[in-house]
Protein backbone atom coordinates (compact mmCIF):
# COMPACT_ATOMS: atom_id res chain seq x y z
CA UNK A 1 0.00 0.00 0.00
CA UNK A 2 2.75 2.36 0.96
CA UNK A 3 4.45 1.71 -2.33
CA UNK A 4 1.27 2.33 -4.28
CA UNK A 5 0.91 5.62 -2.45
CA UNK A 6 4.51 6.55 -3.15
CA UNK A 7 4.24 5.86 -6.84
CA UNK A 8 1.13 8.00 -6.99
CA UNK A 9 3.02 10.87 -5.43
CA UNK A 10 6.08 10.32 -7.58
CA UNK A 11 4.16 10.18 -10.84
CA UNK A 12 5.72 13.04 -12.77
CA UNK A 13 5.31 13.77 -16.46
CA UNK A 14 8.26 12.50 -18.47
CA UNK A 15 10.65 15.19 -19.68
CA UNK A 16 10.19 16.13 -23.32
CA UNK A 17 13.53 14.82 -24.51
CA UNK A 18 12.88 11.34 -23.15
CA UNK A 19 11.31 10.10 -26.36
CA UNK A 20 14.16 11.17 -28.62
CA UNK A 21 16.97 9.53 -26.67
CA UNK A 22 18.26 6.00 -26.83
CA UNK A 23 18.30 3.89 -23.69
CA UNK A 24 21.99 4.52 -23.13
CA UNK A 25 21.64 8.26 -23.57
CA UNK A 26 18.70 8.30 -21.22
CA UNK A 27 20.78 6.47 -18.64
CA UNK A 28 23.49 9.11 -18.91
CA UNK A 29 20.84 11.80 -18.63
CA UNK A 30 19.39 10.19 -15.52
CA UNK A 31 22.76 9.97 -13.83
CA UNK A 32 23.89 13.48 -14.63
CA UNK A 33 24.53 15.69 -11.60
CA UNK A 34 21.72 18.14 -11.03
CA UNK A 35 23.81 21.30 -11.09
CA UNK A 36 24.61 21.43 -14.78
CA UNK A 37 24.64 25.24 -14.97
CA UNK A 38 27.78 25.52 -12.90
CA UNK A 39 28.86 28.84 -14.45
CA UNK A 40 26.21 30.87 -12.70
CA UNK A 41 26.78 29.06 -9.43
CA UNK A 42 30.52 29.49 -9.74
CA UNK A 43 30.17 33.25 -10.20
CA UNK A 44 27.73 33.40 -7.33
CA UNK A 45 30.17 31.44 -5.18
CA UNK A 46 33.18 33.57 -6.14
CA UNK A 47 31.29 36.80 -5.43
CA UNK A 48 30.27 35.44 -2.05
CA UNK A 49 33.82 34.40 -1.28
CA UNK A 50 35.21 37.81 -2.25
CA UNK A 51 32.67 39.50 -0.01
CA UNK A 52 33.44 37.08 2.80
CA UNK A 53 37.18 37.78 2.51
CA UNK A 54 36.89 41.57 2.71
CA UNK A 55 34.08 41.42 5.26
CA UNK A 56 36.21 41.80 8.44
CA UNK A 57 37.49 45.14 7.16
CA UNK A 58 33.94 46.39 6.68
CA UNK A 59 32.38 45.25 9.92
CA UNK A 60 32.93 45.49 13.64
CA UNK A 61 33.55 42.60 15.98
CA UNK A 62 29.83 42.10 16.69
CA UNK A 63 29.08 41.48 13.04
CA UNK A 64 32.19 39.39 12.67
CA UNK A 65 31.01 37.03 15.40
CA UNK A 66 27.56 37.02 13.82
CA UNK A 67 29.19 36.09 10.52
CA UNK A 68 31.01 33.20 12.22
CA UNK A 69 27.70 32.02 13.63
CA UNK A 70 26.11 32.18 10.20
CA UNK A 71 28.96 30.08 8.78
CA UNK A 72 28.46 27.46 11.47
CA UNK A 73 24.74 27.36 10.72
CA UNK A 74 25.77 27.16 7.08
CA UNK A 75 27.57 23.89 7.81
CA UNK A 76 24.38 22.39 9.23
CA UNK A 77 22.42 23.73 6.25
CA UNK A 78 24.97 22.23 3.87
CA UNK A 79 24.43 18.88 5.53
CA UNK A 80 20.67 19.27 5.05
CA UNK A 81 21.28 19.96 1.37
CA UNK A 82 23.45 16.87 0.91
CA UNK A 83 20.52 14.83 2.18
CA UNK A 84 17.55 16.70 0.75
CA UNK A 85 19.00 18.16 -2.43
CA UNK A 86 21.06 15.17 -3.52
CA UNK A 87 19.50 12.15 -1.90
CA UNK A 88 15.90 13.27 -1.44
CA UNK A 89 15.92 12.62 2.32
CA UNK A 90 14.43 15.32 4.53
CA UNK A 91 16.18 15.27 7.89
CA UNK A 92 14.48 17.21 10.65
CA UNK A 93 17.20 16.23 13.09
CA UNK A 94 20.54 17.49 11.79
CA UNK A 95 20.88 19.42 15.05
CA UNK A 96 21.57 16.03 16.64
CA UNK A 97 25.06 16.08 15.12
CA UNK A 98 25.55 19.78 15.76
CA UNK A 99 24.71 19.26 19.42
CA UNK A 100 26.57 15.98 19.74
CA UNK A 101 29.76 17.52 18.36
CA UNK A 102 29.37 20.58 20.57
CA UNK A 103 28.85 18.50 23.72
CA UNK A 104 31.64 16.02 23.02
CA UNK A 105 34.13 18.74 22.21
CA UNK A 106 33.13 20.78 25.28
CA UNK A 107 33.48 17.77 27.56
CA UNK A 108 36.90 17.00 26.14
CA UNK A 109 38.15 20.57 26.51
CA UNK A 110 36.88 20.72 30.07
CA UNK A 111 38.06 17.34 31.28
CA UNK A 112 40.46 15.62 28.89
CA UNK A 113 42.65 17.62 26.58
CA UNK A 114 43.32 21.03 25.08
CA UNK A 115 44.50 19.67 21.76
CA UNK A 116 42.13 20.84 19.03
CA UNK A 117 43.08 18.14 16.54
CA UNK A 118 42.62 15.35 19.07
CA UNK A 119 39.20 16.72 19.94
CA UNK A 120 38.28 17.09 16.27
CA UNK A 121 39.32 13.50 15.58
CA UNK A 122 37.32 12.17 18.53
CA UNK A 123 34.25 14.15 17.53
CA UNK A 124 34.53 12.97 13.96
CA UNK A 125 34.79 9.31 14.96
CA UNK A 126 32.00 9.54 17.53
CA UNK A 127 29.67 11.29 15.10
CA UNK A 128 30.52 8.77 12.39
CA UNK A 129 29.66 5.84 14.64
CA UNK A 130 26.46 7.43 15.91
CA UNK A 131 25.30 8.54 12.47
CA UNK A 132 26.07 5.09 11.04
CA UNK A 133 23.83 3.44 13.62
CA UNK A 134 21.02 5.99 13.49
CA UNK A 135 21.28 6.23 9.72
CA UNK A 136 20.99 2.46 9.33
CA UNK A 137 17.79 2.63 11.38
CA UNK A 138 16.31 5.73 9.73
CA UNK A 139 17.06 4.82 6.13
CA UNK A 140 15.04 1.61 6.35
CA UNK A 141 12.02 3.89 6.50
CA UNK A 142 11.54 6.32 3.66
CA UNK A 143 9.87 9.65 2.98
CA UNK A 144 8.09 11.23 5.89
CA UNK A 145 9.08 8.37 8.21
CA UNK A 146 12.73 9.24 7.71
CA UNK A 147 11.95 12.84 8.65
CA UNK A 148 10.10 11.70 11.76
CA UNK A 149 12.80 9.28 12.93
CA UNK A 150 15.52 11.89 12.62
CA UNK A 151 13.26 14.37 14.38
CA UNK A 152 12.53 11.92 17.19
CA UNK A 153 16.18 10.98 17.65
CA UNK A 154 17.26 14.61 17.97
CA UNK A 155 14.44 15.20 20.41
CA UNK A 156 15.60 12.25 22.55
CA UNK A 157 19.19 13.53 22.58
CA UNK A 158 17.92 16.96 23.58
CA UNK A 159 15.89 15.44 26.44
CA UNK A 160 18.87 13.37 27.59
CA UNK A 161 21.14 16.42 27.61
CA UNK A 162 18.39 18.30 29.42
CA UNK A 163 17.99 15.65 32.11
CA UNK A 164 21.57 14.58 32.78
CA UNK A 165 23.13 16.43 35.69
CA UNK A 166 26.64 15.31 34.86
CA UNK A 167 26.68 17.33 31.63
CA UNK A 168 25.00 20.37 33.12
CA UNK A 169 21.32 19.47 32.73
CA UNK A 170 19.14 22.28 31.46
CA UNK A 171 21.88 24.87 32.15
CA UNK A 172 24.40 23.23 29.87
CA UNK A 173 28.12 23.77 30.41
CA UNK A 174 29.97 27.05 30.63
CA UNK A 175 33.55 28.22 30.69
CA UNK A 176 34.85 26.21 27.77
CA UNK A 177 38.48 27.20 27.19
CA UNK A 178 39.52 28.43 23.77
CA UNK A 179 42.44 26.38 22.47
CA UNK A 180 45.23 27.37 20.10
CA UNK A 181 45.09 25.45 16.85
CA UNK A 182 48.56 24.34 15.74
CA UNK A 183 48.60 24.34 11.95
CA UNK A 184 52.22 23.72 10.97
CA UNK A 185 55.23 23.36 13.25
CA UNK A 186 55.65 26.85 14.70
CA UNK A 187 52.43 28.23 13.19
CA UNK A 188 49.27 28.28 15.27
CA UNK A 189 45.91 29.98 15.02
CA UNK A 190 44.98 32.02 18.06
CA UNK A 191 41.20 31.98 18.26
CA UNK A 192 41.13 34.85 20.75
CA UNK A 193 41.53 37.18 17.81
CA UNK A 194 38.25 37.67 15.98
CA UNK A 195 40.11 38.06 12.69
CA UNK A 196 41.93 34.76 13.05
CA UNK A 197 38.78 33.00 14.25
CA UNK A 198 36.75 34.31 11.33
CA UNK A 199 39.28 33.37 8.68
CA UNK A 200 39.88 29.95 10.23
CA UNK A 201 36.16 29.14 10.16
CA UNK A 202 35.77 30.58 6.67
CA UNK A 203 38.70 28.53 5.40
CA UNK A 204 37.34 25.41 7.08
CA UNK A 205 33.91 25.88 5.56
CA UNK A 206 35.27 26.63 2.09
CA UNK A 207 37.33 23.44 2.26
CA UNK A 208 34.29 21.47 3.38
CA UNK A 209 32.19 23.01 0.62
CA UNK A 210 34.76 22.23 -2.06
CA UNK A 211 35.25 18.73 -0.70
CA UNK A 212 31.52 18.08 -0.63
CA UNK A 213 31.10 19.39 -4.15
CA UNK A 214 33.95 17.25 -5.38
CA UNK A 215 32.53 14.12 -3.77
CA UNK A 216 29.05 14.78 -5.09
CA UNK A 217 30.39 15.35 -8.61
CA UNK A 218 31.65 11.79 -8.78
CA UNK A 219 29.70 8.72 -9.74
CA UNK A 220 28.74 8.47 -6.08
CA UNK A 221 26.89 11.79 -6.30
CA UNK A 222 25.24 10.72 -9.53
CA UNK A 223 23.87 7.61 -7.87
CA UNK A 224 22.54 9.77 -5.05
CA UNK A 225 20.75 12.00 -7.57
CA UNK A 226 19.34 8.92 -9.25
CA UNK A 227 18.04 7.73 -5.87
CA UNK A 228 16.44 11.12 -5.32
CA UNK A 229 14.77 11.13 -8.72
CA UNK A 230 13.62 7.53 -8.82
CA UNK A 231 14.56 5.30 -5.93
CA UNK A 232 12.70 2.29 -7.30
CA UNK A 233 14.66 2.16 -10.54
CA UNK A 234 18.13 2.43 -9.02
CA UNK A 235 18.42 -1.20 -7.84
CA UNK A 236 17.83 -2.31 -11.47
CA UNK A 237 20.96 -0.43 -12.44
CA UNK A 238 22.91 -2.56 -10.02
CA UNK A 239 23.26 -0.13 -7.13
CA UNK A 240 22.00 -0.80 -3.64
CA UNK A 241 20.36 2.47 -2.55
CA UNK A 242 20.75 1.59 1.13
CA UNK A 243 24.53 1.90 1.23
CA UNK A 244 24.57 5.04 -0.88
CA UNK A 245 21.98 6.70 1.32
CA UNK A 246 23.81 5.61 4.44
CA UNK A 247 27.11 6.97 3.16
CA UNK A 248 25.44 10.28 2.29
CA UNK A 249 23.91 10.37 5.75
CA UNK A 250 27.23 9.76 7.50
CA UNK A 251 28.89 12.37 5.30
CA UNK A 252 26.16 14.92 6.07
CA UNK A 253 26.55 14.24 9.78
CA UNK A 254 30.28 14.98 9.50
CA UNK A 255 29.56 18.31 7.82
CA UNK A 256 27.02 19.27 10.49
CA UNK A 257 29.49 18.21 13.18
CA UNK A 258 31.97 20.83 11.91
CA UNK A 259 29.53 23.51 13.04
CA UNK A 260 29.14 21.87 16.42
CA UNK A 261 32.88 21.43 16.84
CA UNK A 262 33.49 25.17 16.52
CA UNK A 263 30.36 26.53 18.20
CA UNK A 264 31.46 26.10 21.84
CA UNK A 265 34.68 27.99 21.06
CA UNK A 266 32.67 30.91 19.73
CA UNK A 267 30.15 31.12 22.54
CA UNK A 268 32.07 29.60 25.44
CA UNK A 269 29.08 27.50 26.48
CA UNK A 270 26.79 24.72 25.30
CA UNK A 271 23.13 24.15 26.18
CA UNK A 272 20.57 21.44 25.39
CA UNK A 273 18.82 23.65 22.85
CA UNK A 274 21.74 23.01 20.46
CA UNK A 275 20.07 19.64 19.80
CA UNK A 276 16.73 21.32 19.48
CA UNK A 277 14.12 21.41 16.84
CA UNK A 278 14.88 25.08 16.26
CA UNK A 279 18.41 24.47 15.01
CA UNK A 280 17.32 21.54 12.81
CA UNK A 281 14.50 23.43 11.20
CA UNK A 282 16.43 26.65 10.81
CA UNK A 283 18.94 24.67 8.82
CA UNK A 284 16.11 23.47 6.57
CA UNK A 285 14.70 27.01 6.23
CA UNK A 286 17.98 28.54 5.18
CA UNK A 287 18.58 25.74 2.68
CA UNK A 288 15.14 26.34 1.25
CA UNK A 289 15.74 30.09 1.05
CA UNK A 290 19.11 29.66 -0.63
CA UNK A 291 18.06 26.88 -2.95
CA UNK A 292 18.03 23.15 -2.33
CA UNK A 293 20.31 20.97 -4.42
CA UNK A 294 22.80 23.75 -5.12
CA UNK A 295 25.22 23.36 -2.15
CA UNK A 296 26.09 27.06 -2.36
CA UNK A 297 22.46 28.06 -1.77
CA UNK A 298 22.31 26.88 1.85
CA UNK A 299 25.44 28.91 2.67
CA UNK A 300 23.99 32.02 1.02
CA UNK A 301 20.69 31.41 2.77
CA UNK A 302 22.25 30.97 6.18
CA UNK A 303 24.23 34.22 5.89
CA UNK A 304 21.15 36.13 4.70
CA UNK A 305 18.81 34.70 7.32
CA UNK A 306 21.25 35.12 10.21
CA UNK A 307 21.83 38.77 9.37
CA UNK A 308 18.18 39.38 8.62
CA UNK A 309 17.23 37.90 11.97
CA UNK A 310 19.72 40.13 13.71
CA UNK A 311 18.36 43.22 11.94
CA UNK A 312 14.73 42.25 12.52
CA UNK A 313 15.61 41.34 16.09
CA UNK A 314 16.79 44.89 16.74
CA UNK A 315 13.39 46.27 15.72
CA UNK A 316 11.08 43.63 17.11
CA UNK A 317 11.24 40.53 19.27
CA UNK A 318 9.00 38.75 16.83
CA UNK A 319 11.75 37.23 14.70
CA UNK A 320 10.09 33.79 14.84
CA UNK A 321 7.12 35.22 13.02
CA UNK A 322 9.35 36.66 10.32
CA UNK A 323 11.18 33.34 10.02
CA UNK A 324 7.88 31.50 9.70
CA UNK A 325 6.64 33.95 7.10
CA UNK A 326 9.82 33.59 5.03
CA UNK A 327 9.39 29.83 5.28
CA UNK A 328 5.80 29.96 4.04
CA UNK A 329 6.55 32.38 1.21
CA UNK A 330 9.47 30.32 -0.07
CA UNK A 331 7.64 27.01 0.17
CA UNK A 332 4.64 28.37 -1.68
CA UNK A 333 6.11 30.74 -4.23
CA UNK A 334 9.86 30.17 -4.59
CA UNK A 335 10.38 26.45 -4.06
CA UNK A 336 13.82 26.49 -5.67
CA UNK A 337 15.10 29.34 -3.53
CA UNK A 338 17.20 32.38 -4.35
CA UNK A 339 19.65 30.46 -6.50
CA UNK A 340 16.72 28.98 -8.40
CA UNK A 341 15.32 32.48 -8.84
CA UNK A 342 18.65 33.67 -10.26
CA UNK A 343 18.74 30.70 -12.59
CA UNK A 344 15.27 31.48 -13.83
CA UNK A 345 16.11 35.15 -14.34
CA UNK A 346 19.26 34.36 -16.28
CA UNK A 347 17.33 31.83 -18.37
CA UNK A 348 14.80 34.54 -19.21
CA UNK A 349 17.60 36.91 -20.17
CA UNK A 350 19.31 34.27 -22.29
CA UNK A 351 16.12 33.47 -24.17
CA UNK A 352 15.49 37.21 -24.62
CA UNK A 353 18.95 37.62 -26.15
CA UNK A 354 18.58 34.66 -28.47
Amino acid sequence: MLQAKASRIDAKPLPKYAARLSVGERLVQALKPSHSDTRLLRWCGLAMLALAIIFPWLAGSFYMRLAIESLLLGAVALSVDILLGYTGLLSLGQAAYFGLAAYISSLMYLHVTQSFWLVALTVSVAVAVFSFILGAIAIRASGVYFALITFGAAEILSKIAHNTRAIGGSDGMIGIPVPRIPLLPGVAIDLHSNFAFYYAVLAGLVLIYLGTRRVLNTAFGSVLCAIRDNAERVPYLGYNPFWYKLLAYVMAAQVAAFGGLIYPLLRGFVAPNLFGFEVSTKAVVVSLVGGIGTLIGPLVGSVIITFLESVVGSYTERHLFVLGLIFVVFVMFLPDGLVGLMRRLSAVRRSANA
Partner: protein
Amino acid sequence: MEDLLTYLHLVVLPQMIDALVIGAALAIVALGLTMIFGLLDVINLAHGDLYMLGGYAAFTLIGWGAGYWGALVLVPLLVGAVGWGLEELGIRPLLPRADRAIVTLLLTFGVSLMLRDLAQVVWGTDTHSIAPPFGGMASFADVFVPTYRLFIFGVGFIAIVATWWLVYRTRVGAVLRATAVDPSMVASFGIPIRLVYGFTFMYGCGLAGLAGVLLSPIYAVFPTMGHDFLVMAFAVVIVGGMGSITGAVVAALLLSQVQGLASLWIPPVWAETLVYGLMLLVLVVRPSGLFNRIGEA
Protein backbone atom coordinates in the same frame (compact mmCIF):
# COMPACT_ATOMS: atom_id res chain seq x y z
CA MET B 1 1.12 -9.00 50.02
CA GLU B 2 -1.14 -6.66 51.91
CA ASP B 3 1.34 -3.86 51.29
CA LEU B 4 1.49 -4.59 47.61
CA LEU B 5 -2.29 -4.45 47.30
CA THR B 6 -2.41 -1.16 49.16
CA TYR B 7 0.34 0.18 46.92
CA LEU B 8 -1.49 -0.90 43.79
CA HIS B 9 -4.74 0.50 45.11
CA LEU B 10 -3.61 3.87 46.44
CA VAL B 11 -0.58 4.69 44.28
CA VAL B 12 -0.79 2.82 40.99
CA LEU B 13 -4.54 2.97 40.42
CA PRO B 14 -4.91 6.78 40.78
CA GLN B 15 -1.94 7.22 38.46
CA MET B 16 -3.56 4.95 35.89
CA ILE B 17 -6.83 6.88 36.09
CA ASP B 18 -4.96 10.14 35.61
CA ALA B 19 -3.14 8.69 32.62
CA LEU B 20 -6.45 7.51 31.19
CA VAL B 21 -7.80 11.07 31.31
CA ILE B 22 -4.72 12.50 29.62
CA GLY B 23 -4.82 9.61 27.15
CA ALA B 24 -8.37 10.51 26.13
CA ALA B 25 -7.36 14.12 25.42
CA LEU B 26 -4.23 12.95 23.63
CA ALA B 27 -6.35 10.63 21.50
CA ILE B 28 -8.46 13.57 20.30
CA VAL B 29 -5.40 15.50 19.15
CA ALA B 30 -3.86 12.40 17.57
CA LEU B 31 -7.13 11.58 15.77
CA GLY B 32 -6.99 14.93 13.99
CA LEU B 33 -3.35 14.44 13.02
CA THR B 34 -3.89 10.93 11.78
CA MET B 35 -7.00 11.75 9.73
CA ILE B 36 -5.23 14.63 8.03
CA PHE B 37 -2.26 12.41 7.20
CA GLY B 38 -4.46 9.52 6.10
CA LEU B 39 -6.35 11.59 3.57
CA LEU B 40 -4.02 14.36 2.47
CA ASP B 41 -0.53 12.92 3.08
CA VAL B 42 0.06 16.04 5.14
CA ILE B 43 1.99 15.98 8.39
CA ASN B 44 0.49 18.95 10.13
CA LEU B 45 3.25 20.45 12.27
CA ALA B 46 0.94 23.35 13.13
CA HIS B 47 -1.42 20.96 14.91
CA GLY B 48 0.10 21.63 18.32
CA ASP B 49 -0.29 25.35 17.77
CA LEU B 50 -3.93 24.92 16.87
CA TYR B 51 -4.29 23.11 20.19
CA MET B 52 -2.61 26.13 21.81
CA LEU B 53 -4.96 28.44 19.91
CA GLY B 54 -7.85 26.47 21.39
CA GLY B 55 -6.57 27.20 24.90
CA TYR B 56 -6.10 30.92 24.21
CA ALA B 57 -9.43 31.25 22.43
CA ALA B 58 -11.13 29.68 25.44
CA PHE B 59 -9.31 32.12 27.74
CA THR B 60 -10.48 35.11 25.68
CA LEU B 61 -14.04 33.90 25.18
CA ILE B 62 -14.44 33.24 28.90
CA GLY B 63 -13.04 36.71 29.55
CA TRP B 64 -15.72 38.12 27.25
CA GLY B 65 -18.39 36.41 29.26
CA ALA B 66 -19.11 33.40 27.05
CA GLY B 67 -18.57 31.15 30.04
CA TYR B 68 -16.81 27.79 29.96
CA TRP B 69 -19.71 26.04 28.24
CA GLY B 70 -19.91 28.68 25.55
CA ALA B 71 -16.18 28.29 24.96
CA LEU B 72 -16.46 24.52 24.81
CA VAL B 73 -18.90 24.83 21.92
CA LEU B 74 -17.43 27.85 20.11
CA VAL B 75 -13.69 27.15 20.28
CA PRO B 76 -13.68 23.93 18.21
CA LEU B 77 -15.69 25.76 15.56
CA LEU B 78 -13.29 28.72 15.56
CA VAL B 79 -10.15 26.59 15.45
CA GLY B 80 -11.80 24.43 12.79
CA ALA B 81 -12.40 27.57 10.74
CA VAL B 82 -8.72 28.51 11.08
CA GLY B 83 -7.86 25.00 9.91
CA TRP B 84 -10.14 25.38 6.90
CA GLY B 85 -8.43 28.65 6.01
CA LEU B 86 -5.01 27.03 6.35
CA GLU B 87 -6.04 24.21 4.03
CA GLU B 88 -7.66 26.52 1.51
CA LEU B 89 -4.81 29.04 1.30
CA GLY B 90 -1.72 27.05 2.16
CA ILE B 91 -2.07 23.31 1.71
CA ARG B 92 -4.27 23.09 -1.39
CA PRO B 93 -1.89 24.88 -3.80
CA LEU B 94 0.87 22.48 -2.75
CA LEU B 95 -1.06 19.21 -3.11
CA PRO B 96 -0.40 18.73 -6.86
CA ARG B 97 3.37 18.87 -6.28
CA ALA B 98 5.23 15.60 -6.54
CA ASP B 99 6.92 16.05 -3.18
CA ARG B 100 3.81 17.18 -1.37
CA ALA B 101 4.47 15.20 1.79
CA ILE B 102 7.68 17.15 2.32
CA VAL B 103 6.62 20.63 1.15
CA THR B 104 3.43 20.60 3.20
CA LEU B 105 5.43 19.51 6.22
CA LEU B 106 7.70 22.50 5.70
CA LEU B 107 4.74 24.82 5.13
CA THR B 108 2.92 23.76 8.29
CA PHE B 109 6.15 24.21 10.20
CA GLY B 110 6.36 27.83 9.01
CA VAL B 111 2.73 28.34 9.98
CA SER B 112 3.46 26.84 13.38
CA LEU B 113 6.25 29.38 14.02
CA MET B 114 3.95 32.21 12.95
CA LEU B 115 1.06 31.09 15.15
CA ARG B 116 3.31 30.68 18.18
CA ASP B 117 4.71 34.17 17.79
CA LEU B 118 1.32 35.65 16.99
CA ALA B 119 -0.03 34.19 20.22
CA GLN B 120 2.74 35.99 22.11
CA VAL B 121 1.84 39.26 20.42
CA VAL B 122 -1.86 38.94 21.16
CA TRP B 123 -1.81 37.28 24.58
CA GLY B 124 1.68 38.06 25.87
CA THR B 125 4.20 35.58 27.22
CA ASP B 126 2.54 35.13 30.63
CA THR B 127 0.85 31.93 31.64
CA HIS B 128 -2.90 32.30 31.86
CA SER B 129 -5.12 30.06 33.88
CA ILE B 130 -8.67 29.02 33.31
CA ALA B 131 -10.89 27.98 36.19
CA PRO B 132 -12.55 24.61 35.72
CA PRO B 133 -16.33 24.96 35.35
CA PHE B 134 -16.91 22.88 38.45
CA GLY B 135 -14.82 21.61 41.32
CA GLY B 136 -15.36 18.69 43.58
CA MET B 137 -14.02 15.20 43.90
CA ALA B 138 -15.55 11.94 42.94
CA SER B 139 -14.53 8.95 44.99
CA PHE B 140 -14.95 5.26 44.68
CA ALA B 141 -13.22 2.73 46.86
CA ASP B 142 -11.01 5.34 48.54
CA VAL B 143 -9.65 6.63 45.23
CA PHE B 144 -10.33 10.33 44.76
CA VAL B 145 -10.53 11.86 41.29
CA PRO B 146 -11.40 15.51 40.53
CA THR B 147 -14.79 15.55 38.85
CA TYR B 148 -13.43 17.77 36.09
CA ARG B 149 -11.00 15.04 35.05
CA LEU B 150 -13.83 12.59 34.76
CA PHE B 151 -15.61 15.17 32.64
CA ILE B 152 -12.56 15.41 30.32
CA PHE B 153 -12.59 11.68 29.95
CA GLY B 154 -16.32 11.74 29.21
CA VAL B 155 -16.02 14.40 26.52
CA GLY B 156 -12.96 12.69 25.06
CA PHE B 157 -14.83 9.39 24.95
CA ILE B 158 -17.81 11.01 23.21
CA ALA B 159 -15.53 12.73 20.67
CA ILE B 160 -13.75 9.45 19.91
CA VAL B 161 -16.99 7.52 19.49
CA ALA B 162 -18.46 10.32 17.38
CA THR B 163 -15.40 10.30 15.13
CA TRP B 164 -15.53 6.54 14.80
CA TRP B 165 -19.23 6.72 13.94
CA LEU B 166 -18.61 9.50 11.43
CA VAL B 167 -15.83 7.63 9.66
CA TYR B 168 -17.21 4.09 9.72
CA ARG B 169 -20.98 4.44 9.85
CA THR B 170 -22.00 7.42 7.69
CA ARG B 171 -21.99 8.29 4.01
CA VAL B 172 -19.54 11.12 4.68
CA GLY B 173 -17.25 8.57 6.30
CA ALA B 174 -17.52 6.27 3.30
CA VAL B 175 -16.36 9.16 1.12
CA LEU B 176 -13.50 9.91 3.50
CA ARG B 177 -12.33 6.31 3.50
CA ALA B 178 -12.61 6.06 -0.26
CA THR B 179 -10.64 9.29 -0.68
CA ALA B 180 -7.86 7.94 1.50
CA VAL B 181 -7.48 5.01 -0.89
CA ASP B 182 -7.99 6.62 -4.29
CA PRO B 183 -8.87 10.31 -4.56
CA SER B 184 -9.05 10.41 -8.35
CA MET B 185 -11.56 7.55 -8.41
CA VAL B 186 -13.69 9.38 -5.85
CA ALA B 187 -13.47 12.56 -7.88
CA SER B 188 -14.61 10.72 -10.98
CA PHE B 189 -17.85 9.88 -9.14
CA GLY B 190 -18.55 13.61 -9.02
CA ILE B 191 -17.65 14.08 -5.38
CA PRO B 192 -15.90 17.43 -4.76
CA ILE B 193 -12.54 16.30 -3.41
CA ARG B 194 -11.57 19.80 -2.34
CA LEU B 195 -14.52 19.86 0.03
CA VAL B 196 -13.55 16.44 1.38
CA TYR B 197 -10.01 17.66 2.04
CA GLY B 198 -11.22 20.95 3.50
CA PHE B 199 -13.67 19.14 5.77
CA THR B 200 -11.03 16.67 6.98
CA PHE B 201 -8.60 19.43 7.79
CA MET B 202 -11.29 21.46 9.53
CA TYR B 203 -12.50 18.48 11.53
CA GLY B 204 -8.98 17.52 12.62
CA CYS B 205 -8.11 21.07 13.64
CA GLY B 206 -11.44 21.41 15.44
CA LEU B 207 -10.53 18.35 17.51
CA ALA B 208 -7.21 19.98 18.42
CA GLY B 209 -9.15 23.08 19.52
CA LEU B 210 -11.47 20.93 21.62
CA ALA B 211 -8.50 19.34 23.36
CA GLY B 212 -7.12 22.83 24.00
CA VAL B 213 -10.30 23.88 25.82
CA LEU B 214 -10.52 20.64 27.77
CA LEU B 215 -6.95 20.59 29.05
CA SER B 216 -6.34 24.28 29.71
CA PRO B 217 -7.99 24.26 33.17
CA ILE B 218 -5.47 21.55 34.14
CA TYR B 219 -2.30 22.65 32.38
CA ALA B 220 -2.89 26.44 32.04
CA VAL B 221 -2.33 28.34 28.80
CA PHE B 222 1.12 29.43 27.56
CA PRO B 223 2.71 30.03 24.14
CA THR B 224 4.77 26.84 23.88
CA MET B 225 2.09 24.50 25.24
CA GLY B 226 1.50 23.19 21.74
CA HIS B 227 5.06 22.07 21.07
CA ASP B 228 5.39 19.53 23.88
CA PHE B 229 1.94 18.17 23.24
CA LEU B 230 2.59 17.89 19.51
CA VAL B 231 5.68 15.76 20.01
CA MET B 232 3.68 13.44 22.24
CA ALA B 233 0.82 13.32 19.73
CA PHE B 234 3.31 12.43 17.01
CA ALA B 235 4.67 9.60 19.10
CA VAL B 236 1.08 8.37 19.40
CA VAL B 237 0.39 8.62 15.69
CA ILE B 238 3.65 6.88 14.79
CA VAL B 239 3.14 4.03 17.23
CA GLY B 240 -0.51 3.61 16.23
CA GLY B 241 0.22 3.86 12.53
CA MET B 242 0.19 7.05 10.47
CA GLY B 243 -3.34 7.51 9.18
CA SER B 244 -4.95 4.91 11.41
CA ILE B 245 -8.02 5.83 13.47
CA THR B 246 -7.96 2.78 15.72
CA GLY B 247 -4.21 3.10 16.08
CA ALA B 248 -4.41 6.69 17.28
CA VAL B 249 -6.85 5.80 20.06
CA VAL B 250 -5.12 2.61 21.16
CA ALA B 251 -1.64 4.16 21.09
CA ALA B 252 -2.81 7.29 22.93
CA LEU B 253 -4.18 5.19 25.78
CA LEU B 254 -1.13 2.91 25.73
CA LEU B 255 1.54 5.62 25.67
CA SER B 256 -0.15 7.76 28.31
CA GLN B 257 -0.23 4.70 30.58
CA VAL B 258 3.45 4.04 29.88
CA GLN B 259 4.34 7.62 30.68
CA GLY B 260 2.07 7.79 33.72
CA LEU B 261 3.26 4.55 35.27
CA ALA B 262 6.92 5.07 34.41
CA SER B 263 6.90 8.43 36.15
CA LEU B 264 6.04 6.61 39.39
CA TRP B 265 9.48 5.03 39.41
CA ILE B 266 11.68 7.29 37.31
CA PRO B 267 11.69 11.11 37.10
CA PRO B 268 8.83 12.35 34.86
CA VAL B 269 11.23 13.88 32.34
CA TRP B 270 12.84 10.49 31.82
CA ALA B 271 9.39 8.94 31.45
CA GLU B 272 8.85 11.28 28.51
CA THR B 273 12.18 10.22 27.04
CA LEU B 274 11.08 6.60 27.47
CA VAL B 275 7.98 7.30 25.36
CA TYR B 276 10.12 8.73 22.56
CA GLY B 277 12.38 5.72 22.83
CA LEU B 278 9.34 3.47 22.43
CA MET B 279 8.34 5.49 19.37
CA LEU B 280 11.78 4.99 17.86
CA LEU B 281 11.59 1.27 18.58
CA VAL B 282 8.25 0.96 16.79
CA LEU B 283 9.64 2.91 13.84
CA VAL B 284 12.54 0.49 13.63
CA VAL B 285 10.57 -2.72 14.01
CA ARG B 286 7.42 -1.76 12.16
CA PRO B 287 7.71 1.66 10.46
CA SER B 288 4.08 1.70 9.39
CA GLY B 289 2.89 1.43 13.01
CA LEU B 290 0.70 -1.08 14.79
CA PHE B 291 -2.52 -0.58 12.83
CA ASN B 292 -3.53 -0.11 9.21
CA ARG B 293 -4.16 3.18 7.53
CA ILE B 294 -7.64 4.66 7.25
CA GLY B 295 -9.62 3.08 4.42
CA GLU B 296 -7.84 -0.25 4.67
CA ALA B 297 -9.46 -3.19 6.35
